[in-house]
């Protein structure tokens, strides 16, 4: 432990500050460009106008966005709950693995967003098809990464566990899961970024609620300001979900190489 904690805190604060400064710079450049080149607000609204719309329409935006976010989180949770155990099964040398790995590879390559209309045909407009669609997109990265974590356990660790008679669920809990956690979190972070995308895509094609539906409506009404306000909210939720996952990761695997010295 060569670093002091105050030092690492300062590094992190500096990181956040420089990120915020970059964002502010982009907004300032945007505002200047719209004014300087006299861009029509229907094409690109002023950031200040977007901010005003955000405040004026906050109740509508919060209501729409919260149902979308809730669906995204539910779908993601389902993907985690099923992705990890199936990843474990995939990592076991057996005939199931051979069958499963071919299927998952095919499913992995297939552009999954393309089947959103089919979900609508089969399952309609409710909450369930939305959650299932989000799960469908988020599930694969978690399963594949979990499987690669479970198969990466070094022989010496496996042999140690065997000589200690560490078997069954206890072997999973004490050795396999902790070892695979860094891999699993990589999968969850990928899926977390998919979750909002999947939720919005589904609302485009099969929903009459949610922020995705609201953004689609602004296109029809040519309300670009509200559209941009929607983008802002969507980005914010995306950040928040990713931030929560990264935060849990930080707490869960403080020993991992990627976390050392942070």
């Amino acid at each position, binding site marked *: *432990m060569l670093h002091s904690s105050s030092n690492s805190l300062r590094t992190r604060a500096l990181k956040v500050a420089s990120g915020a400064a970059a964002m502010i710079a982009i907004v300032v450049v945007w505002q200047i460009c719209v004014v300087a080149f006299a861009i029509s607000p229907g094409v690109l609204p002023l950031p200040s106008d977007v901010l005003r719309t955000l405040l004026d329409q906050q109740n509508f935006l919060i209501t729409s966005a919260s149902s979308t976010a809730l669906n995204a989180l539910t779908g993601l949770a389902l993907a985690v709950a099923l992705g990890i155990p199936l990843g474990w099964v995939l990592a076991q040398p057996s005939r199931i693995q051979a069958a499963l790995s071919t299927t998952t590879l095919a499913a992995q390559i297939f552009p999954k967003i393309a089947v959103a209309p089919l979900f609508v045909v089969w399952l309609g407009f409710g909450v369930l098809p939305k959650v299932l669609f989000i799960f469908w997109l988020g599930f694969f990265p978690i399963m594949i990464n979990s499987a690669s974590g479970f198969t990466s356990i*070094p022989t*010496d*660790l496996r*042999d*140690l566990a*065997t*000589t*200690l*008679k*560490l078997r069954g669920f*206890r072997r999973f809990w*004490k*050795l396999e899961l*902790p*070892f695979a*956690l860094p891999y699993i979190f990589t999968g969850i972070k990928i899926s977390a970024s998919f979750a909002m995308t999947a939720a919005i895509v589904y609302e485009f094609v099969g929903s009459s609620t949610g922020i995705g539906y609201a953004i689609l409506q602004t296109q029809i009404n040519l309300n670009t300001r509200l559209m941009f306000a929607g983008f802002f909210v969507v980005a914010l939720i995306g950040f928040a979900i990713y931030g929560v996952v990264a935060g849990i990761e930080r707490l869960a*695997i403080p*020993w*991992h*190489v990627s976390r*050392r010295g942070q």
Partner: protein
Amino acid sequence: MRATTDDVVALRDVSMVFGAGSRAVVALDRVSLTVGSNETVALIGPSGCGKSTTLRIIAGLARPTSGEVTVRTAGEGQGGLSMMFQTPALFDWRTVRGNVMLPLEVAGVNRAVAREEADRLVKVVGLEGFADHRPFELSGGMQQRTAVARSLISNPRLLLLDEPFGSLDAITRDQMCNELSAICASRPIAVVLVTHSIAEAIFLADRIFVMSARPGRMIREVRVPMARPRSVDDRASEVWVKLESELRAALVQ
């Protein structure tokens, strides 16, 4: 070589074949070996001679193609076998204490008792003050010390060592050998040591088996005529030098 009931390990005509048909490789060819209850046996030989396979068979990690394997590790107040590997094989997510107490935890020993015992062994291997450190904060030698403490905490009757100090530098290696021989001398324990270092074998073992490669065979058994534990000074002795050249000659064959 007659097996007695006192033996902790007895292998009789153990053979191991990997693969099948024309691609079959005979890893072990009718290997026989016994280890007494308070005896240290070393297996030396070129890489690929099957010494690690022999150890894995004793540990129950591999099943021989043919032959008889007897391992008796039940005993009064102690029991079981422990194995040390080429890597420290520590759980990165556990502290030194957490790693050392793992065998007791798995065996269902009371947590407070296991903790106390772990702290005691952490001291024995010279890691006092590091019990709450994680493996990545330790040097390679300290990690292997943690593994030593973990392998001794269950008070095993049989300790299997698979080139445990192979990845350490020469100085740390000598130090670890010294400490291990002192620790082993302080308790009744059977040890099987796999190594490619002749010096390490002479320093630690009562008997040394020399193995040949492809197929893996026992070609020589040598008794080390020096009292244990041995000291660094013994290395200059006539007995040591003679034994070393004898073993070197056997290995070259």
